[in-house]
């Protein structure tokens, strides 16, 4: 077999136009500038609401994607981590007067512990069995939160005082919240990009694609799965805290419902699993769609917004099985007249 010399690796560094794994692209920079612009311009309150939820859910979808897209740990139980984060910072604030600026990180840490526990408990489960276990796990957490009323307020939930206060992370201006949520999404995006470009990221890809082969390459699959789930859970928990700080109220069914878990999984699936830009595109398409349909049609014809929403999802799943990220790549390569 011929000894061909390997290609030179020191290629000229040019900014790619479309997103690529582990590299910053022009598309991403422009998208970030647009997002900053949207925060800065004066939108109507409804639109601002939609905008900040879009950012928040982009971050949450990115967090889910670390486990589901990169490590292949498809989870329908991430609402548990979302809830753990939301409850931790809120309980610390309401019961112990600890500022959410600290509480958020405590929530992230505790959510990481929950994530690691889930990964260890489900260590031997794969495919549908793993997915169903994550769903059950979240239900256990929800029922736990319902019953531990002295701490969580049970079904009545917990409220955060709406008096604006920087130390309590409560603001009157939705612009501030939008900036906060954008900051969160950018943080999770940056972590995702760093992961893609790292040896650890490759370990996760390998575990996802073939555990036996990964193991034969010296990768400890259980360690990879557990750490990926913990990281994903932690970032989801941070998002949960932010959610609680925005709504100033939480109860178990509001923050730990299967619907929330499905939403986390759906956005990356629509946008493109295992890509950094996918969950962002998913959130930019789905979150405004679902919010606007709900607010505009919710009263006129109960349930109609769900029909339109579902029809949209089916179209995406049928025609863009690789998600929006793949569709954009295809479009960029499309040469109709050659």
């Amino acid at each position: 077999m011929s000894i061909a010399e390997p290609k030179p690796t020191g290629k000229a560094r040019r900014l790619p136009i479309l997103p690529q794994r582990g590299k910053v692209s022009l598309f991403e920079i422009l998208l970030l500038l647009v997002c900053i612009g949207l925060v800065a311009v004066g939108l109507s309150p409804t639109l601002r609401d939609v905008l900040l939820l879009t950012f928040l859910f982009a971050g949450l979808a990115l967090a889910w994607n670390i486990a589901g897209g990169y490590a292949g740990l498809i989870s329908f139980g991430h609402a548990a981590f979302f809830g753990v984060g939301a409850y931790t910072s809120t309980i610390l604030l309401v019961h112990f007067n600890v500022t959410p600026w600290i509480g958020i990180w405590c929530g992230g840490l505790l959510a990481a512990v929950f994530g690691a526990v889930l990964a260890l408990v489900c260590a031997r489960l794969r495919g549908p069995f793993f997915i169903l276990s994550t769903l059950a796990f979240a239900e256990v957490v929800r029922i736990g939160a319902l019953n531990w009323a002295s701490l969580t307020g049970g079904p009545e939930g917990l409220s955060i005082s709406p008096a604006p206060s920087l130390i309590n992370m409560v603001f009157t201006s939705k612009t501030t919240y939008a900036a906060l949520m954008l900051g969160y999404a950018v943080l999770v995006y940056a972590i995702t990009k760093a992961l893609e470009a790292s040896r650890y990221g490759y370990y996760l890809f390998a575990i996802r694609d073939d555990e036996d082969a990964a193991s034969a390459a010296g990768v400890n699959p259980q360690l990879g799965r557990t750490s990926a789930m913990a990281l994903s859970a932690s970032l989801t928990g941070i998002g949960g805290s932010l959610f609680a700080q925005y709504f100033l109220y939480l109860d178990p069914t509001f923050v730990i419902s299967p619907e929330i878990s499905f939403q986390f999984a759906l956005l990356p699936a629509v946008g493109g699993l295992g890509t950094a830009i996918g969950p962002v595109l998913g959130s930019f398409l789905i979150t405004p769609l679902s919010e606007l349909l709900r607010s505009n049609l919710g009263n006129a014809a109960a349930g109609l917004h769900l029909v339109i929403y579902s029809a949209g999802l089916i179209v995406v799943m049928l025609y863009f099985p690789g998600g929006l990220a793949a569709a954009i790549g295809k479009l960029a390569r499309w040469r109709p007249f050659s």
Partner: protein
Amino acid sequence: MSVLLEVRNASRKFGALMAVNNVSFSVGQGELLGLIGPNGAGKSTLYNLIAGVLPPTAGEIVFDGKTVTGWKPYEVARVGIGRTFQIPKPYRQLSVVENVMLTAFLREKSIAGARRLAEITLADVGLADYFGTPVSALTVGLLKRLEVARALAMQPKLVLFDEIMAGLTPTEVGVMTKFVAGLPARGITVIWVEHVLYAIMKTASRIIVLNRGELIAEGPPAAMARDPAVVKAYLGEEMDLA
């Protein structure tokens, strides 16, 4: 010749079936050991015992002075045992070079370093034109070569090849045989399971034969080709090695 791998009285039971029954053999540094036997003889199970996929129910495995019995596959890989899979197990969503980088990481911690090592290894097995190709576009023959490249990119002390010739064209078999024969000179000890007998009989320095979980013969290829027990259990008739 110093001993690199020693398998001592290894057994593996599946229920009442003794898949590997009290097998002992050793492999010297720089040897090319052929492992042959009919289907179901226990070759794959024996590989799985060495590679750590299954713990032996009895016996001991010593590699490079360390007792590795019951170690996990990733621990065994880290001390220098590479392997291929009989049915190729590529990472489906990664490119060819990325597939090889994963094992190269055992030698080169940086992404750029691992990529370079992977590219060199791929060029070595004749896949220089396929670095960025998605693995779904590879033919069986190319997938087998990818398996070989993955096992070698970690620069193993010992490599376990599992039927790397199956599905290859006669020309490819010739090229691959020559390639494998050259590995011991590069400091890589080889154990090779193969049904393409003329390839293995020509290159192996020694052959061991398994049948029904037991080691029934051991010796140079020429002797094995005429050994009555081997002929009866596997070959069917004496093999002409000329």
